[in-house]
C-alpha cells in the first residue's frame, strides 16, 4: 500500500515538475566514462569522455575538431545502438560548401562526410537537421529516449541546455558539441571543454593528409584540468592506407602541465 502511494507521489511530482525533477537511483547513468580510444581520454582525466555531460570541442577555423568529432562518431556507431548528429547549422550536408575555415582553399567544395572514417556502422547513424530552436528540443528528446551518442553541430538554445543535460544524465548519453567559439551559456553548460588550434599542416607527397593541432583542456568539471597536448590528425583518405590511427598524440616540444581553468 505504501509502495503504491509512493509510486503515486513520484508520478505526481514528475507530472507537476517535469520528469527530471526526481530521478531514481537505478536510473542514474553509469559512472564509467566512454573510452573513445583517442588522446582525448587522457586530456579528460578520467580515461574517457564523460557520459551524461556535455563535452565541447571548440576552436576557430580549421583546427581538426570536426575530423576528431567524426572519428568519435564513427567509433560510437560501432558501440551504441544510436549515434545521432544534430545539425543545427544546416551546413552539414553532402556537397555543401564550407562557410568557415581555411581548408576550402585546399579541398574545394567541401563535403563534411569526407572526414568520416571508413568503418562506421551505418545502421546506427542518423542525422537530424533542424533550426537551432527546435534542435534543442530534438536533442533533449533523443537524450531522454536513450540515444547513446549525440553530436551537436552547433549551439543549443539556452533554455534547452538544462533539460538536455538532465536527459543525457538520466540515459548516460555521450554528448559532444562542436563549435567555433561557444557562447557563454553553452560554455557554462559544458563539463569538459577542449580548445583546438592548428599549428601546421601535414603533407605527404604533395598531398594534404592532415594537420598538427594543439588540444588544450579549457574546462573540466569531471577531473582536474590536465593542460594540453599536441595531436596529429590524419584525414581518412582511403580504407587501405596504412595509417595507425586517425588521431595520434605527438610529443610536446615544451610540456606545460598547468591548471588551465577553474571549475565553472
Amino acid at each position: 500500500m505504501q509502495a503504491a502511494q509512493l509510486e503515486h507521489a513520484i508520478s505526481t511530482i514528475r507530472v507537476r515538475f517535469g520528469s527530471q525533477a526526481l530521478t531514481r537511483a537505478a536510473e542514474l547513468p553509469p559512472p564509467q566514462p566512454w573510452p573513445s580510444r583517442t588522446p582525448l581520454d587522457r586530456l579528460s582525466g578520467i580515461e574517457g569522455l564523460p557520459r551524461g555531460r556535455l563535452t565541447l570541442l571548440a576552436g576557430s577555423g580549421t583546427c581538426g575538431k570536426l575530423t576528431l568529432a567524426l572519428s568519435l562518431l564513427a567509433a560510437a556507431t560501432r558501440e551504441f545502438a544510436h549515434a545521432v548528429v544534430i545539425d543545427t547549422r544546416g551546413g552539414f550536408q553532402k556537397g555543401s560548401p564550407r562557410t568557415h575555415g581555411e581548408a576550402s582553399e585546399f579541398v574545394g567544395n567541401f563535403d563534411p562526410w569526407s572526414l568520416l572514417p571508413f568503418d562506421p556502422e551505418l545502421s546506427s547513424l542518423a542525422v537530424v537537421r533542424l533550426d537551432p530552436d527546435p534542435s534543442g528540443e530534438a536533442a533533449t528528446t533523443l537524450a531522454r529516449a536513450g540515444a547513446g551518442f549525440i553530436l551537436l553541430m552547433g549551439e543549443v538554445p539556452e533554455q534547452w541546455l538544462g533539460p538536455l543535460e538532465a536527459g543525457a544524465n538520466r540515459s548516460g548519453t555521450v554528448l559532444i558539441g562542436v563549435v567555433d567559439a561557444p557562447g557563454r551559456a553553452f560554455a557554462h553548460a559544458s563539463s569538459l571543454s577542449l580548445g583546438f588550434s592548428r599549428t601546421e599542416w601535414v603533407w605527404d607527397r604533395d598531398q594534404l593528409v592532415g594537420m598538427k593541432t594543439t588540444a588544450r583542456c579549457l574546462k573540466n568539471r569531471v577531473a582536474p584540468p590536465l593542460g594540453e597536448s599536441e595531436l596529429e590528425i590524419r584525414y581518412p583518405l582511403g580504407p587501405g592506407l596504412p595509417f595507425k590511427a586517425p588521431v595520434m598524440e605527438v610529443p610536446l616540444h615544451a610540456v606545460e602541465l598547468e591548471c588551465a581553468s577553474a571549475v565553472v
Partner: protein
Amino acid sequence: MRVCCGLTNHLELAKRPDLYGGPVVVGEWEEHVIAASEEASLFGVVPGMPLRQAGHLCPQATFLAPDPDAAANLRELISSALYDLAPVVEVRAEGIASIDVSGVVRSGESIREARRRLRAAIGREPRLGLAPGPFSARLAAARARPGRLMQVEDPRTFLAPLTSRELPLDEEQLERLDLLGLRTLGAVAAIGPRELESQLGREGRHAVLLARGAEPDELIAWRPPQFTCAHRQFEPAVEDREALLFVSRALCGDLAAELGLRGAGAKQVRVRLAYESNQPDERESIVRHPLSSQAELFGLIGQWIKEWQPRAPVTELWIELPVLEAAGRRQLRLWSGGDGNSEEVIAALERLQERHGDGVVSKPRPALLSSPLPTQRFDWVS
C-alpha cells in the same frame, strides 16, 4: 494437430438460457429453421426444414426470431475466452467450439478450463471430443456425455462404423452414397478418392479423406479484434493541462499493460477531447513502428496534449488505438550499448519527422563503402 472440440447449443439458442429445458425453434417466419433445441428435435424438428412444418410438428415450441448480432457477440465472447488457452481457436454459430491443443503445455488443464469457460458462456455442460482433426473431434464430442471428454487415438478406426450421413454433403449426394451402398464411413474410406470424385465431384474426394481420418480441413483461427481504447470522464470538467497529462499518462499505462498481454503494438493512435458544449476535438496519427510501452505511447500523446489549446473545459478524454499489430520483438545487439532503448529512440525520431517533415531525419544507405571518393560511399535517405 490435436483438436479439442466442445459441442454446445446453437448460439441462437444459447442467448436465451431462460428457455433451456423446453422446445425452442429459431427461424424467420416463411423461412427455414435455423436452430432447434434438443427437446424440439425429439418432435422431428431439424435445422433446414420450413418453419411452418416445424410449427405443425411441435406446436408447443417457443418460436424465436434469429438475432445474428447477438449470436455474433456471443461468438466473439467465447472466442476471446478460449483464446487464452490455445493459439488457434474456432467458434461456429452452430455451437461448435474447437481449439488446437497441439504444442500446448499441460493441454489437459487447457481442456478442463475450456469446458469451464464454455459452461459459463452457454449455461450448459458442453460435450467434449479430442482427436487428431476437427472432423473426428466433432463426431467424438457428439458421442460424449455432457461435461465429459471422448478421446480418439486412431480416427480411422473410430470413424469406420459411423454412418456416412455424418459427412458434410448435401441431401442429394448423401442419397447417392446410399444408392452406391456406402452407408458407413468405413465403406467410404475403403474406396479410392478418385472413384468417389468421379461420382460426386470434388466433395466426393473430400468425403473420402474425411472418412479415412486424413483430416484435410484446418481450423479457421479466430483473431482478436484489432482495436482497443481507454477513456476517462471528468466530473467536474477539467481545464488544467497538468491534470490532463496525469490522466493521459495513467491511460497510456493501462493501454500498454493490455498491449503487453496481447503482444500487440499500436500502429495508429487517436486522442479525442470532449468539451462541455462544443464539438469534440480529435487528433490522430499513424506511426511507423508499433508503440507498445507506456513511455512510447505517452511520448506521442503527451506531446499532443502539451500543444493542444482546448476551447472549453474538458469533460472526457479518449485514447483509441484503432489499428493494432504484432509488437516487434527484436534480438538485442549484444555488443551495442543502449540497444534496449532502441524503440524509444526510433519513436522519438519518428515524432520529429511527424512534426517537422520527413526530411528532418536522414540515415545513410551504404553504396560503395570502399570507394576512396567520399561522395560514393553512402547515400542519404529520409
